[in-house]
């Protein structure tokens, strides 16, 4: 008798109908969006605020350096004494006063610049002022020494090395960032999925033990059927939750940004603004083009297929281990001891992925870890965007699937014995004995 569909259905419905599951499903995106909206709103508020900075230039070198921008207004206070200027700035509640003392020679200017303010000024403002002054002083010095600024400007060269593989595939620097993003998202998604829903499986096994229904159930179905039913049912519930999160998140994001008129993509600090400006200078079009080329250079089909297989394989492998732990103990507090050996390889995989794959996606460490079954799903998913030979992917997948089968066998053994054991928390030695029952 095959009861698997029946068990899957029950597990799925129980999870999906659970109150806290429903609340989590619908509240999480709301909270996330609210959080993003608040951050966006606040940073916009911050950007909108106009700052007035007063300039008292007694040296006379720094004329026409400070030009008003959207957020910053400069007022020239020349002619006042420093004391008067400070008093005035205080009274007007300006952001601060930039004072350049009168000096004998150009070389002394750099040591005589001071910023007065009520509170300590923001780092970005100070560094922006510094850059402006440095640039101006440099120019003046160059001109003083008879160097033509025009020639310097003309000599400036920007180079982007065009990359092309032996097969004639064009790529660029931005490609690597895109590859990292894709691999990272895939790997991290799997990691999160395993942790959240693996735990859910474990809890539902423990629940069957503590409610003592387990013996009734397994007098009707085989333990392995029950275990697989649980894993699949819970995973489907997980996929449902994820899908709702993505859809709801997308819709909410659109709605919120429409209502509040906040452009979520513009959530950025003044520093980023500078970076963006620099990038635009290089040619926004070229940048966008590169991104497009980068994405189209990704092995998309390979990526999708590999994602599906490694995701399912990795998730099933870990969840069968979670199920075994649930069967071995009576309550959640006892799970700690057994969780560590499961979490270790998982965390290791993420670390290897983040630190090694970025440095050298085809180096020894990355390659080895993309074959070891417990780490391979995460590491391989991160490597694949950089192009991994199919034989490597295949071998890794074969290893993963065989380990999964071994893990299911092992978990089923523990499960079969464990679900009927109450009382004492088992030791590793006892777990090993159970395998032989």
């Amino acid at each position: 008798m095959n009861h698997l569909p029946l068990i899957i259905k029950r597990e799925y419905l129980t999870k999906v109908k659970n109150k806290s599951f429903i609340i989590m499903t619908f509240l999480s995106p709301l909270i996330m969006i609210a959080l993003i909206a608040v951050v966006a709103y606040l940073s916009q508020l911050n950007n909108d605020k106009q700052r007035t900075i007063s300039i008292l230039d007694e040296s006379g070198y720094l004329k026409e350096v400070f030009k008003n921008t959207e957020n910053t207004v400069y007022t020239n206070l020349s002619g006042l004494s420093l004391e008067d200027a400070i008093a005035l700035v205080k009274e007007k509640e300006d952001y601060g006063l930039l004072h350049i003392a009168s000096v004998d020679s150009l070389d002394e200017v750099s040591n005589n610049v001071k910023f007065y303010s009520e509170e300590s000024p923001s780092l970005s403002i100070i560094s922006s002022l510094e850059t402006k002054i440095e640039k101006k002083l440099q120019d003046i010095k160059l001109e003083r020494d008879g160097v033509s600024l025009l020639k310097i400007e003309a000599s400036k060269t920007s180079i982007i090395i065009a990359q092309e593989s032996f097969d004639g595939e064009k790529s660029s620097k931005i490609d690597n960032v895109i590859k990292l993003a894709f691999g990272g998202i895939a790997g991290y998604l799997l990691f999160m999925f395993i942790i959240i829903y693996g735990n859910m499986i474990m809890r539902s096994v423990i629940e069957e033990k503590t409610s003592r229904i387990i013996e009734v159930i397994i007098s009707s179905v085989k333990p392995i059927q029950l275990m697989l039913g649980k894993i699949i049912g819970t995973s489907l519930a997980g996929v449902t939750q994820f899908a709702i999160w993505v859809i709801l998140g997308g819709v909410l994001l659109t709605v919120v940004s429409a209502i509040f008129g906040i452009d979520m993509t513009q959530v950025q600090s003044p520093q980023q603004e500078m970076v963006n400006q620099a990038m635009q200078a290089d040619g926004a079009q070229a940048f966008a083009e590169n991104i497009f080329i980068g994405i189209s250079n990704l092995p998309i089909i390979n990526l999708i297929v590999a994602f599906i297989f490694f995701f399912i394989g990795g998730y099933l492998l870990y969840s069968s281990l979670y199920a075994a732990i649930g069967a071995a103990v009576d309550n959640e507090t006892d799970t700690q001891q057994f969780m560590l050996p499961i979490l270790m390889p998982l965390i290791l995989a993420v670390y290897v992925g983040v630190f090694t794959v970025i440095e050298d996606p085809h180096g020894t460490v990355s390659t080895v870890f993309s074959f070891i079954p417990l780490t391979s799903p995460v590491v391989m998913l991160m490597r694949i965007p950089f192009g991994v030979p199919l034989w490597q992917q295949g071998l890794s997948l074969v290893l993963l699937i065989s380990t999964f089968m071994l893990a299911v066998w092992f978990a089923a053994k523990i499960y079969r014995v464990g679900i009927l054991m109450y009382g004492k928390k088992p030791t590793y030695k006892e777990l090993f004995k159970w395998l032989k029952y």
Partner: protein
Amino acid sequence: MSDLLVANSVSKNFGKFRALNQVSIAVPKGSIFGLLGPNGAGKTTLIRIINQITMPDEGTVLLDGHDLKPEHIRDIGYLPEERGLYKTMKVGEQCLYLAQLKGLSKSEAKRRLKYWFDKLEIGDWWNKKIQELSKGQAQKIQFVVTVLHKPKLLIFDEPFSGFDPINANLIKDEILQLREEGATVIFSTHRMESVEELCDHIALIHKSNKILDGKLNDIKAQFKTNTFEVGLQSNNSETVVADIENRFEVLPATFRNLHDDIKLNVKIDKDTSPNDLLSFLTSKAEVHHFVEVIPSANDIFIQTVKNN
């Protein structure tokens, strides 16, 4: 009468511990078979083997003459001692789920559940969650789930625990009714008075071995000591007692009676018939009380376990 369930020299080891050692039992069709034994004797292990929850290391189990197969699951209804239900699931849904696991179709399960819920007057529980019910109420649901698929073999492990006397009686009557309808029952309990009341056959397992089995009446006959409880009235009781003690083995007796001067347990040997004893007694005094002492299941249990 043929046997519905036969276990042949079943053994089971857990590591170095031998939980069952060459245990054989035969459960006749239509009987109520008491599976008895002290805690940890191996009863539950045997029951789990019958339910195919664990596999025996040695020996075979036959149901209706065939080796146990996965299909037999629907022929067996099992109420384990460690029992419970999904706490947050509704009664109706849960019953349907468990019935479907036993191979019933949804509509058939619904029909039979209605019958049982009406019979036990629990119809209004259908939409309640298990955690809203009392322990005894949940036990009722569990009983229904166990018998719903009309199995040939019913296994009850301590079925009355958690029930008040009224409900225990109700369940007892249902078990007897099911037997009338043709089911065979294996009944495991520590309550000897219910063994006395219900069982036709018993098997006693102690320290992984079967140490006794057979028809309850045969076993009682086997354990009887030819002792009679005697209550007499006489004016010179001391002489009478002395006379009896001269001829028979006598032990003090403790039974309740209205007006007996002499209360004795008298043991006769094989060659003496009860009538001989009775006529001897009537010649000496007025007989008010004359009963053969039949060992109770409790006595048999304690005596057998102690001797092993």
